């Protein structure tokens, strides 16, 4: 390449003047920042903390279920209810829903657009503060008398239990607004901040999925808000909408709740799909297969997500509604399968490099397929009557929420880590963490499918002795998975101190965010980024000295 001029060489990390991490110092400069990158990092730290707590609660649950009867000293059945409620509420509202959009999306989205910031930077900071306030309410509920309703807050139990339901509900309400503002910001940013030349079909697929997610966040989350307000009103005043004691209809609460919470499932999974769509082509060195199909399927999933909520209520609805919702639910599998086929086709004959993010991406493909296909059993009315509220459901949604979303989040975190912090983590530890988590996850949740089909109901503190073997296997798996996550945590923290400086483009991606320095300048780009096909890798060359890719001048000539 001596004869060509490099557009941007993959160069080793040097202390960039004005890198966003260091150009202002002090905790206050972080707390008052409107820089989307810093807000993303703050989200990352907070969400990880919440994840740690949610995970510890999960460990307690699995420990308790290791054997029938009371297992954990001092944990009675009531406490157990509170623990699984906290596990669910924290993981859903504080970790998985904001996880990819608010932490990774905040960092990456404006850079993928070649923009300086999101459309409303101060609103972005406010979303983060709302997250913190919402988390504080969850803590208040936790330290007073933690809610024991399950994260779904079903009436009439939630209107009659003596535990601190209201703080938890207020927390979820506030977190909802945090989510709304993030989504609103992202929609406006994608619409209005695109530079000339970056048309809709040149956007990276991550942005399509974030866009589809943001639509759901904006349209569905307010309904959660009003549902929770009505729940509070029901508890305080007995308005008689949900509580049958006062003439209300508890099934109406389920309609309200799932009108939000089913689309919320897609708030969780769509960004994960976007992350996978970014990583698979990069590590296969091959253009993404079926770009348009993946892009449209994201939007289609978002639209379908609003008309399938009834499949959570097959045992409480009328036959007609059951049939409608079952039919629509099956149709969601079409756009989801479109994505899986396209990812698989991208892998086909690619030159696959098993870097840590790619390991996570492959794990995702495997786990998401299981999670998605078991969803079809639950969408079938006949089988759902048998499987409803059993461990089959628990295993199914954990395959989607953890096996897919968390795995994609971790993959994306490894993928963008060099960009965020400018350091390379150890591939050995990274892969080890991924493998351990993957094995642990499957050992935990595969037995739960079996438990569910044999009739083990969910949410139970105690169980019959014949379930013990599978429960014990599941618990052991959970501990393996916990260990895997700690290895990952160690790997990432280790890199901050001892990691090698990252090149600007260590993976050879053609998306715009890799044209900045690692870590980026606080205005994102020191040189105007060049817009092109985000999945075209043919002009990238590996520079072994810098351990990164650079783009050769043939690419520039074409441009």
């Amino acid at each position, binding site marked *: 390449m001596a004869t060509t001029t490099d557009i941007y060489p993959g160069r080793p990390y040097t202390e960039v003047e004005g890198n966003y991490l260091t150009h202002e110092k002090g905790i206050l400069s972080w707390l008052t920042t409107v820089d989307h990158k810093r807000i993303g990092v703050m989200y990352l730290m907070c969400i990880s903390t919440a994840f740690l707590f949610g995970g510890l609660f999960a460990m307690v649950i699995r420990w308790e279920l290791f054997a029938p009867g009371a297992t954990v000293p001092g944990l009675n059945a009531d406490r157990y209810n509170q623990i699984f409620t906290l596990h669910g509420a924290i993981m859903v509202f504080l970790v998985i829903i904001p996880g990819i959009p608010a932490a990774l999306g905040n960092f990456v989205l404006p850079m993928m657009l070649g923009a300086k910031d999101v459309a409303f930077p101060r609103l972005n900071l406010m979303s983060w503060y709302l997250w913190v306030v919402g988390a504080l309410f969850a803590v208040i509920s936790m330290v007073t008398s933690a809610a024991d309703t399950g994260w779904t807050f079903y009436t009439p139990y939630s209107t009659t239990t003596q535990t601190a339901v209201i703080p938890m509900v207020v927390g979820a309400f506030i977190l909802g607004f945090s989510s709304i503002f993030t989504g609103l910001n992202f929609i406006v940013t994608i619409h209005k901040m695109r530079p000339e030349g970056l048309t809709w079909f040149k956007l990276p697929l991550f942005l399509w999925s974030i866009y589809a997610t943001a639509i759901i966040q904006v349209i569905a989350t307010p309904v959660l808000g009003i549902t929770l307000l009505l729940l509070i009103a029901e508890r305080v005043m007995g308005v008689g909408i949900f509580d049958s004691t006062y003439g209300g209809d508890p099934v109406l609460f389920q309609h309200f709740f799932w009108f939000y919470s089913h689309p919320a499932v897609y708030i969780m999974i769509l960004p994960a799909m976007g992350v996978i769509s970014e990583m698979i082509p990069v590590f296969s060195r091959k253009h993404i297969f079926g770009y348009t199909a993946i892009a449209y399927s994201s939007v289609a999933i978002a639209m379908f997500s609003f008309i399938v909520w009834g499949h959570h209520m097959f045992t409480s609805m009328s036959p007609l509604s059951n049939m409608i919702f079952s039919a629509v639910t099956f149709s969601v599998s079409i756009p989801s399968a479109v994505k899986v086929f396209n990812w698989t086709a991208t892998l086909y004959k690619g030159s696959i490099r098993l870097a840590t993010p790619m390991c996570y991406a492959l794990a995702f493909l495997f786990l998401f397929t299981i999670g998605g296909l078991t969803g079809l059993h639950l969408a079938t009315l006949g089988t759902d009557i048998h499987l409803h509220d059993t461990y089959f459901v628990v295993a199914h949604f954990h395959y989607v929420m953890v096996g897919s979303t968390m795995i994609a989040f971790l993959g994306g975190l490894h993928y963008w880590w060099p960009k965020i912090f400018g350091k390379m983590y150890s591939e050995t530890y990274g892969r080890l963490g991924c493998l351990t988590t993957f094995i642990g996850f499957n050992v935990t949740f595969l037995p739960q499918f079996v438990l569910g089909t044999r009739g083990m109901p969910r949410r139970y503190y105690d169980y019959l002795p014949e379930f013990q073997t599978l429960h014990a296997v599941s618990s052991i798996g959970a501990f393996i998975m916990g260990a895997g996550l700690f290895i990952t945590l160690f790997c990432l923290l280790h890199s901050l101190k001892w990691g090698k400086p990252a090149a600007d483009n260590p993976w050879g991606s053609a998306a715009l965010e890799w044209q900045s320095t690692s870590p980026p300048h606080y205005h994102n780009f020191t040189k105007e980024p060049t817009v*092109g096909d985000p999945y075209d890798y043919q002009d990238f060359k590996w520079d072994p000295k810098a351990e990164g890719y650079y783009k050769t001048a043939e690419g520039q000539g074409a441009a």
Partner: protein
Amino acid sequence: MGSESRGILQDSGRTRRRLTMTTETQAIDKSGHDHDHGHSPYLQHHFDTMEQQFNSGKLGMWLFLATEILLFGGLFVAYAIYRALHPEIFEYGHHFLDPVMGGTNTAVLILSSFTMAAAVRYAQEGKKTMLVACLVLTLGGACGFLVIKYFEYSHKMVHGVFPGKFYAPDDHILEEELMGAHGHGHEEGDGHHEEGHGHAAGDHEEAAHEEPAAAPMVVSQTPPAAEGEFVIEKSQIAEAGGGPEGLVGIVQQEPKMPKRPEKAHVFFGIYYLMTGLHGLHVVIGMCAIGWVLLKAMKGVFGPEYFTPVDLVGLYWHLVDLIWIFLFPLLYLID
């Protein structure tokens, strides 16, 4: 690199992002509000043109309004379901609402919406005095709405018409609203001191209400009549001047009180939630208008920059829109 990827991010005509590390860009980053050279002082650093900034703000506001519609949507769902499945509670409950007050409030909100639209126009033209005047008028309309709402609420609450499980109306209001004394004149507080019929014991507390708002509700200082005695005086018929149901009740001479449906309290739950949430939005809107008013008095707005007026205007119109639906759904049931 495809042959079509010519989109270098440099555009003619618009000065794009300044990426050099100069002191003024650092200042930009801190406040997030300052300006590039040669631009309107209101152009934020991450936008390229005022138009882009304006359109972004507008789309953001519309998305926010969409969330508001969905938020109220939940209440409309609750309304629709109970209206469809238990129409009798609406038939019963609407007697307690006064369509004249509701209609007045509708008119007040529509007028304030108009002054808000006019304010946006004046802001676009840079006419500061008229802008301030229109904003003050809008704020006045909002206050008027809340005052009328306060009369409506306090009249109900004094007589125990609370939502949900606290719903315990006293005889007084039941007779008044269901038996023909249903009249708009009542709230206007003129000459109702003869209206001496059955009080519940708790009714005395209203004598303690000194606020002007409660005063019209002080119907009687005379000792309460015996329970179950209905004395609707002739003189009152003219004053009541009520709606059709009012006249019917009186003409019959033998008033028959409609039976309270089992879920009557649900109507008031829905009524208080819908109007309460709407009232909360009125209050938030007043804060926003006040903020814009302060800025307008400083002379911030002009043809170049009027986005806050426009966006607050949009919000205020939404408050009006919701009420346009609430009014017929709650007050005008027959």
